[in-house]
Structures are given as structure tokens and as C-alpha cells.
């Protein structure tokens, strides 16, 4: 699996996700600086977490207008898979790669903690190594992860199985365990072809037993298996 991890000024989890990809795919991703003129031809594009452009204006808003994101959008529209995590999710939502928006956490604080996630769909490039309904434990670390979409969008997402993950408690109850106020406990969503996944939690920080557990690793294993 050839992959590219985008690096904007202020991106700070690119090394974490590059490590997770390498552990699953056995090959290092290209680290692509936002100002570099061309995006290499890859099987997977990753928009990593961090504080691109210092979160100025609005999280993800500045990066969304960078030339490289136009190229990412064009590739995504041609079907190249995109994994957008945390600030990457914010950028992807800004540019319309996935539906919805990310607002300030309901409690107005940054939150770094392990959370429980219910895998809503195992029918995707990203989640086929999980069982639908499985509860996994991965961390979140964000101040603006409060997912919101209007009722029509939510209905469409749910009808089409585009909700990837929901926050839940350890028993899988998706009315509990919400760390940020996200509507219907939504933690991650697909685009309508399920080739783009945007999610707030950090599966890349749950890929080694001693460093946060391994519940995030199947996501990278799934991509590595699907995108050979």
C-alpha cells in the first residue's frame, strides 16, 4: 500500500499515523508538505491530526483552502481512499469531502482520554477487520470534535450506513460515553461511496499494546489488506 500523509504548518500527529501505517503495511508513507507542487500517486491519502494553521479562523478552515486540498478532493472524487483523522476530519468536513461539521466540545474544554467506540459498519475499506457492533477502545484528543449535521443529512447518513463509529460505554450503549456532545454520538462518518473516512478519535494511538492498546490497529490492517 502506497500512502501519503499530508503535512500542513501546525500538523502534529503525522508521525503517529505514519508509524501506524508502517506497522500494518510494512512500508513508510510519503510525507507530503502542503506547499509541494505534486501529490505522489498513492493508494491512500491521509490527512493527519494537529492544529493546521494554528486553528486560526476556524479549525481546518485555512488548510481546506490550500491548493493541495483541491488536489486531494479531485483524487477523492476519482475514488482514491482518504483517511481524515481529528484535524484531518475538520479539514475534510470544511472542504465537503464528508458531510457535517465539527463544533467546539460541549463542555468547552480540550479532552484527551480513551473512549469506547461502537463499530457501526464493517462494510468498508477501513473497517472490514472489525465486526459490526464491536466495541473498541481508542483515545480522543481535541477541543473541537462536537459533530453536527442537520436532520436530513443525519437521516441520509444513517439510512446509507455512512456512520462509521459512535461513542458508547463499555457495553456498547450509544446513548452514553459521549466525550464532546456529538449529535447521536457520532465519532466518524464515511462519504457516500465509503472511500473517505473522517473521524475524531485517534486509531493511530492504539496500535501498540504498551502504548494505548491495539484496538486501532485493525483499521490500518484493513487498509493494508484492501489496498495492496
Amino acid at each position, binding site marked *: 500500500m502506497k500512502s501519503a500523509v499530508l503535512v500542513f*504548518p*501546525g500538523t*502534529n*500527529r503525522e*508521525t*503517529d499515523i505514519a*508509524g*501506524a501505517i508502517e506497522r500494518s503495511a510494512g512500508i513508510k508513507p510519503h510525507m507530503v508538505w502542503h*506547499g509541494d507542487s505534486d501529490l505522489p500517486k498513492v493508494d491512500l491519502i491521509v490527512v493527519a491530526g*494537529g*492544529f493546521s*494553521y*494554528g*486553528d*486560526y479562523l476556524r479549525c481546518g478552515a485555512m488548510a481546506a483552502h490550500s491548493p493541495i486540498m483541491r488536489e486531494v478532493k479531485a483524487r477523492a472524487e476519482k475514488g482514491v481512499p482518504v483517511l481524515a483523522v481529528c484535524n484531518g476530519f475538520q479539514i475534510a468536513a470544511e472542504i465537503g469531502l464528508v458531510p457535517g461539521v465539527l463544533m467546539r466540545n460541549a463542555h468547552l*474544554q*480540550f*479532552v*484527551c*482520554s480513551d473512549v469506547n467506540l461502537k463499530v457501526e459498519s464493517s462494510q468498508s475499506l477501513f473497517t472490514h477487520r472489525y465486526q459490526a457492533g464491536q466495541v473498541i477502545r481508542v*483515545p480522543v*484528543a481535541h*477541543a473541537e470534535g462536537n459533530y453536527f449535521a442537520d436532520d436530513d443529512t443525519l437521516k441520509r447518513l444513517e439510512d446509507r450506513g455512512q456512520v462509521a463509529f459512535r461513542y458508547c460505554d463499555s457495553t456498547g450503549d450509544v446513548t452514553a460515553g459521549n466525550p464532546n456532545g456529538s449529535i447521536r454520538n457520532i465519532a466518524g462518518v464515511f462519504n457516500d461511496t465509503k472511500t473517505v473516512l473522517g473521524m475524531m478519535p*485517534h486509531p*493511530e*494511538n492504539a*496500535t*501498540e499494546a*504498551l*502504548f*494505548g492498546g491495539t484496538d486501532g490497529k485493525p483499521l490500518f490492517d484493513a487498509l493494508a489488506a484492501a489496498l495492496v
Partner: protein
Amino acid sequence: MTTWEQNPPVKLPNEPAITPQIVAEHGLSPDEYQRVLKIMGREPTMVELGVFSAMWSEHCSYKSSKVWLKKLPTEAPWVIQGPGENAGVIDIGDGQAAIFKMESHNHPSYIEPYQGAATGVGGILRDVFTMGARPIANVNALRFGDPEHPKTRHLVGGVVAGIGGYGNCMGIPTVAGETSFHRAYNENCLVNAMTVGIARADRIFYAAAAGLGNPVVYVGSKTGRDGIHGATMASAEFTEDSESKRPTVQVGDPFVEKLLLEACLELMETDAIVAIQDMGAAGLTSSSFEMADKGGLGLEIALDKVPMRETGMNPYELMLSESQERMLMVLKPGREDEARRIFEKWELDFAVIGRLTDTRRMVLRWYGDVVASIPIPPVVTEAPVYERPWTATPLPPALDAATIAPPKDYADALLQLVGSPDQCSKAWIWRQYDHLIMGNTAIRPGGDAAVVRVPDGNGKALAITSDCTPRYCQAHPETGGRQAVAEAWRNLTAVGATPLACTDNMNFGNPQKPEIMGQFAGCTMGMAEACTTLAFPIVSGNVSLYNETQGRGILPTPVIGGVGVMKDVTRCVDIATREAGLVLVLIGETRGHLGQSIYLRDIQGREDGPPPPVDLTVEKRNGDFVRSQIQAGHVAACHDLSDGGLAIALAEMAMAGGTGLTIAIPEDAGCPVHAYLFGEDQGRYVMAVRPAVADAVLASAAAAKVPATRLGSSGGAALTVEGVLAISVADLRRTHEAWLPAYMEVRS
């Protein structure tokens, strides 16, 4: 004769005459001003006076503390760089070095908690990456006033948000720390931030300028008017109008610092840099003097070339601004364009502002005119140094545990303690810090020490902690100093690491008072003794004096930031007893020392007696034994005993692991039950030992002459002390986790 001697510097338009009042406003005593006149041989200009004011401030010159700091041991075979550079450097093996330091931002944090704390984190990060290290962990030690004080809640909220806001954006995990409350900090909170970074041991960058004619380069943010005279503010007591000093608090931008970090590390991959120094306290003044002085050279700076954020700034403001996220570098000749390309890629300012000279003078020009010309060596070597008078605090008479009442109900007392402001869970705080980024955090906040894997380090890890028990330091400074070092060493040991070195952050009141100076002296002497015996040298540090408001000083608070190493990160243990059947072994001797204990203070309402004595030989013997057992894989969990003694330690182990613990107090305990459970005797640990090896561990302890007592075992759902108390782990957790969120929930 060179031109600067023939032509004294020009005065700026509207420059006032130097009056005694102006001298006083610059924090210089009349004697110190006489010294300025002698060095200059004439009346200084305002710019020059500002430079002396900053360089000779307590904050920059260590004039009251220097004579005492010299007593601290700073060397060991593994120390690469001790105090005197931006941060300390130790060899951690595999060609790697750990670079670390702790620094205070107390005064600014009290005035403007978010920015004060944020820029404290920014400053210490710069100190570490200036030396070529990539920061891998942040730590912070916080002291606030009485929770009931009207300002405390506001300070807690602002400081925590500020630390998180900066560290999170930088992408450096905040992995450890401590937070406590006491009325002595009502008007002076303490915010001490520590950063640990990793560099190649053969590529460490220093501040000493070299190479006549080499370009001096300014990089980072533009200079604004913020923080002017910050160092001078941090060197004075607070008065009622301190709120009006808000403009002297700097404003941070962690996004720019992230860019600065990446740009500096990228340039450091080349060999273009000769010397580099961050602009911290006293900004351009202290960075330029330090570089030139350490290199034995002179410096000529064209101040008009400094990138400015505002129009109309003058040389005085430029030299004294403490705008954040700035660095000064000396480059090899001809490498300017290469460096400029890197900084422009990261969208940062880059300006060649001067050249190194052989005059040993600092010559500052403003559009060609010389506005200051100061001989560099005397500013540094003839800076005032005071041997301030001091009086020792006598050791309070011993308290007999038998004269201290037991609690009415042991379970109630333990619940009260685990839910108290000082002992309660601080998760509300560290959940706001990204403690997982970089993916190397093996032991998270909330235990004895954090453990962070070293990137590209062959599986080795660093253990990191910060410790101090101010009430011990107040009662008897020498014992308190000894205990602070011993506790840091013990916390590193309790996770299985070998302690290597520490950094100190000395927070005290007004050193011009003999009893305060005596606290400083006593703590330093105690620390020196402990660092020597434990082979745990001080490699960097910071002094914050004048933590007083209207004559009331803080508790003496010498915070120790300790760093240890372990070869194999998979061998580390935390405090959580996660499984049933583990054998609980108490290491160390329990005499039931209740003087200055948490039990005495929080249950009996008394703050008296002597602090527990610290026998450093015993400390080392017990700790070396515990570490050997952890490294041998015999131990599933381990916790050192400190505030609240055995009872609190067991409760914390049970809560962290979610498993009950049952112990019986030995019949030959030799002290009353409450003293056995809550006494704060030093040099002790509880190890949860794997059952198959329990007998062997006890036998090795006996062979090593280490006191070891089999207390009980893990299992069930309650913490039980047979015949004394039984509390479900769920109840303990509920109480432990309740106080801080509830406290912060109230809108003041």
C-alpha cells in the same frame, strides 16, 4: 581609539534624564547604579540603563541565590552539560542525550493565568529545542491558594487551559505533574513547567558565539511591545496594583512556536549554526549578552533591522521586549541564504541583525547612530552577588504519635482524604492535556512517574516526575530539601527506572528577609546532600524569588524534576493492581511519623511537628532493592509511600487497578494503627508481587537487609484493613474523582 569611545551614544528623542526615581523604577538599588556608573565611566543612556536593569534583575542574575546554588552537585559521568546553558544534558545511551529543564512562570500566571502559563510552557520548550533536542514530554508542577479563596478557581481554570492550549498545539505530550492547594499561595500561585527532549549526543547546540564577523540572525516572531520588563516584574514582590502589570505579561502563539521548532530542527540537520540562544526573559538583551559573553566576543546589532510587529517602536523597547517565539543565532559565514530558505518555508521572520566583533562590547545602532555601547564582561562578571543574611529554621520538637488522636472512623477518614483537594484525582486537569500524542506514553499521568519511550531508542524509555512537599520545607527546610530530592528519586525507582539527574525550580519568598533566605539556604543544603548520596545531580534549574504579596510569602517550594532511564520499556510498572492474588509487600521501616502529615493537617486540623526524617543511605538501599525486583519482572505494580502514607498508597493502587486489596496490620507494628496507616515515614514502597515469587522476594529483601513486610493480597472489590476499615473500590473512586470537577463546575 574606536568610534564608540570618541562619540558617546546619541540619546533618543524625548529621552528623560536619569534620575534616582528612574533608576529605582528599573529595579536597581543606588549601590547597583553606582556600579553601573563605574562600569560605563559616564551616565548611561536609557537603553543602557534598561539593559543593566534586565541583566541585573534577580531573574537573570541569580544575585541572591548564586552563592547557594554553587553548593549543589552538578556532575556525574553521564552528565554532558550541567547548569549554565539553556538546559541540562545527560547521556542516556545509544548515542542519545536527554535535555531537560524546569522553569517557573509564577508572576505572569497570577496576573494573567492563561497567557502566563502558556508562555511558561513555550519558554521551557524553547530552552530545550534551542539545544537541538526534539521535545518528547512536558511536565508541570502547580500550587494554588486555598480553594475557598475567591481567585483560586479562576487561576486553576486559566492555568490549566493555558498549559494545555500551548502544549497540545505544539504536539508535545504533557505526561506528569502535581497540583496542590494551600492558603500560603493565595496571592502567589506557582506554575513550574518542565520539558524533556531527545537529541543526538554528538549534536548538541550551545549558546557560545564564535567566529569574528559571523552573522547574527534573528528568527521567529516579530518583536512587539509585550512583556517589556517582565524579568524585572518577576524580581519584585506583588503589591495591590500588580493587576496593572498585565501589559508586562507576554502573549504566546504556540502555532508559531511549532513552526519555529520544526524550522530550527531542520536547520540543525545542516552544519550552518555556530551558536543559538532563545529569547526568553529579558529577550534580546539577555540572549545577545549571553552569546557574546560565553564566546568572549563583542556584538554589533542594527536594531532597526529587527522585525517589528508595531510601528514606532524604539531601541529601548526592542531590547527589553519579551515577545515570544524568537531565537538568536550565529551562523557560519555565507550560510545565510540556506538558513533563510528554511525559515521562509516555515513562514517565519528571518533577519541578519548584526555581526560578531572582537571589541567585547555590545554596540547597538539605530539607523546608523550608536544608541548604546556597553562593555560585555563587567555586565556579567561584575553583576552584583549578595551573600544575604539568613537564619535557620529550627527543627520543631518531635510529636509522639500516641498523643495524636485516631480518627473517629477510619473509613470516613480515608474517604475524606482521597476526596480532599490535595489527594483527589487530578484527571480533570490532565484530561485537558494531550498526554498521548507521539504514541510513546507507556505510563500516563496519575501514577508515581510517567514513562515515555525514547524515539529510535532501542526500546529504552525515560521516567519523568516532579516532586516537592512544601509543608515539610516550611517546617524544616533542610529536611524538606532532602525529601524533595528523595521523593523524586523514589518515584522514578517505583516505575523501575534508574534515576539519572534532576532539574530544580526554587520558588521562595523575599530573599531580603533572613528567615526566607534561611529557607533557601536550608533547602539547598538538604538537596545537595540528597543529590550527592543518591548520585542524582542537578543539571539545570531556575530560581523564582519574591513570591510574596503584602509581606506574606509562599511556603518554600523547591520543586525537583527528576529524569531516569530504563533499558527496556516493557519492564516498567505502574501503581495499578489489576489482578487478584498479588502479594502486597511493604518495603521500608514504618515508625508511624505523623508530624507534618496529611492526616494531622486534614483530619486533625494541625500543621505542626517535624517533617519525617530522610535517611539517604536507607533510601538508596531500599530503592535499589525495589528497582532490582521490578527489573527482574517479579513486581506487577509498585507505589511509593508519600502524602497520606500507607492508607493513601493502597487506596490509589486499588482505584487505579479496579481491584480490591486486603491487608492486616502486623502485630509487631510498633506504633498505633492510625500512625501505621497514615504515617509518612520515608524510603517506603508497596510492591504488588507475583505470588509465585513472593517468598523469594522476601528472602532477597532479608538478604539485602531491606525491611519487607507481607501485608496482604489483592482481590475482591474492596480495600480492607482487617478489623479497621473496608471501603468498596467503587466508593473510593467516586469520592476520589468528585472533588475537582465539582469545584471547577461552580461559576464564580
